[in-house]
């Protein structure tokens, strides 16, 4: 059993999710009585492999979730994949996978090109690091869910405005449900990203206070891009609040959610390929007892 688990690789669950996505896409082409079961089976198998992979890393490689950029992305994609499986089981006629699985696969792709080096940890900063990573993770998942709901809202609204009947086997959620989701995600994303940013500042302040070498300069590209993202998400949440009692609030929220997702994606891409000291391991010359594992 242990040997079996140790052999699970990223390819295993990526392949499962990809097959589930292909099954979802086939809704547009033909009808099938077994497709629903196949989608659930592949998504469940992928999620199972994904879970075992994360557990194995935590148990054997001391890479608990959020301990590296790689694990952080994998945890974000795991949360969305779990959400997809739950939604597919509870709403089998809704093609939610067509919207969620590409994001899941995109996050796994980001994990593959991101660093597997653990973030620097010390007893003094471990809690603040976990808080910082968790809030930022929650913000990203909220932005992704909001964007998915926003895109589905725009498609459903377009269908209703064109007076078109829904495609058989491709029934989108109601505008009311989608509007309900996307009315909450801007504020959740704004609060969690702000909390993540503030906890990052605290974390950095602790580093500075203790004169640790992991200190990130305030002008570091990561600090700037996350600051820009937080500013955008807070602004989006404020706009969403202001328009909430207007007839076109749902449409505005849908576009805000999509733009937030674009800003987040740009931020992630910038982070993947930019030069930064954020999350970098301490310099080898540094001798600080607190930074030692």
């Amino acid at each position, binding site marked *: 059993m242990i040997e079996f688990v140790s052999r699970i690789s990223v390819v295993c669950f990526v392949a499962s999710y990809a097959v589930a996505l292909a099954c979802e896409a086939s809704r547009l082409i033909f009808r099938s009585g077994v497709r629903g079961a196949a989608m659930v089976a592949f998504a469940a198998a992928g999620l199972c492999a994904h879970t075992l992979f994360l557990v194995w890393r935590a148990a054997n490689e001391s890479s608990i979730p959020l301990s590296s950029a790689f694990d952080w992305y994998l945890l974000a994609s795991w949360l969305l994949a779990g959400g997809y499986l739950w939604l597919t089981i509870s709403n089998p006629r809704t093609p939610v996978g067509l919207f969620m699985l590409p994001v899941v696969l995109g996050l796994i792709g980001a994990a593959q090109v991101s660093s597997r080096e653990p973030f620097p940890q010390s007893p003094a900063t471990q809690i603040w690091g976990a808080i910082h990573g968790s809030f930022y993770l929650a913000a990203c998942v909220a932005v992704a869910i909001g964007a998915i709901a926003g895109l589905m809202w725009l498609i459903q609204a377009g269908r209703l405005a064109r007076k*078109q009947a829904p495609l058989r086997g491709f029934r989108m959620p109601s505008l009311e449900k989608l509007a309900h989701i996307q009315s909450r995600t801007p504020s959740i994303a704004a609060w969690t990203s702000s909390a993540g940013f503030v906890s990052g500042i605290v974390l950095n302040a602790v580093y500075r206070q203790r004169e640790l070498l992991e200190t990130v300069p305030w002008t570091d590209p990561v600090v700037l891009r996350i600051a820009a993202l937080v500013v955008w998400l807070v602004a989006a949440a404020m706009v969403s609040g202001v328009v909430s009692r207007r007839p076109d609030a749902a449409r505005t929220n849908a576009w805000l959610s999509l733009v937030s997702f674009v800003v987040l994606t740009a931020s992630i891409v910038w982070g993947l390929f930019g030069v930064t000291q954020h999350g970098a391991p301490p310099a080898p010359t540094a001798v600080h007892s607190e930074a030692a594992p």
Partner: protein
Amino acid sequence: MTLAFVGGTHRTVPLDLRERLAFSAEQATEALQRFRRLFPGREGVLLSTCNRVEFYTAGEKESQPPPTKQLVSFLAECRGIDVGLLESVLVEECDEAVVRHLFSVASGLDSMVLGEPQIVAQVKQAWAIAQESQTSGPLIGEMFQAALRTAKRVTSQTTIGRERLSIPSVAVADFARGVFERFDDKRVLIIGAGKMAAETLRYLRGAGARDIVVLNRTIGRAGQLAARLGARPGSFENLEAELTAADLVVSTTGASAPIVPLELFKKSERQRAGRPLVVLDLAVPRDFDPQIAERPGVWLYSIDDLSAACAANRKSRQSELPAAFAIIEEETQRFMGDLLHRTTVPVIEQLRAGWTETGVAELDRLFRRLPHLDGVAQAEIRQAFERYAAKILHPPLVSLRSASHSGSPHGLLDALKRLFDLKE
């Protein structure tokens, strides 16, 4: 000709002319009574729905159905429409084509929404009116019974009726459900208390709607409908306030001009606090100003908008159509066979009677010449004679039945009449 039909549907008759041609139940009764006076001995059923007006007639021998041109004139006179207008749009059929058409109509295969269930009830109602008006005889009766049987078979043996959709259900399921997740927390406003309103209300209640207000210019009708369907009646004077409170509006009045112009809607819009509004304007002419559809948060659908949904519905069910039409064809052939077989019954009865009569006479003569035969022996001989006659008659009767199911058996009937000297 035994059966005849003239009629027009949403495909052949423009809406404005269809509105003028439509018969209410009372008007249909009057028309049928008039038909009985004008064409005594003929049978007739008038089927009038929002999408079709069709007149079915039947008669045999000396009381054959009137020529279809006379039927067109009859309909035109009943509704005060120029005959020329109707002649160009109404379709005429006779005999087998009439049966096939009625079976398709009753099965919902000719409806705007393929497989809609309401048409069965409408066909039943039309037949009931004909029975009350004493224009439904044995021919029409058998044809309508067979039509209802066929509709049931199509529903049970194909999936065409599995998700049966009428215009109100398409409006609720495909459009209102696209906007709202649930209806139990929504205010539904029904304007108009006609059949379409009642039908829509049933679907909405089935979807979970609880808070329903019915507005009608005739408060009594609104009250009746509301009481029947667990809604509450409202005053038409409160239209603006009710519009403000509503989440979903179903409008089905017979008003000749929009009852909700843009200005009136704008007034209520300001107090809606951004809540979305779904308007199902199922009235012809429309009750809501079409410009209201441009307002943010408003989803307005007219009856014409539903035609696209109906077309999509029809398309998605195309795969079931061959199976459904195969049932229609089979039932049509069976009905026509039975109908034609009816014409052979008198000949068969004469033939049997002639053979029986001859046999009885011959047996009497035989028993007189053989007086020593006891009762048991006589009975045995009688049975042997009857079996012999039955066996001799069996092949020609089978041929006659077979001929009646595969077409007209008149050739065989004439031959039998001439061979055995049978009278008409």
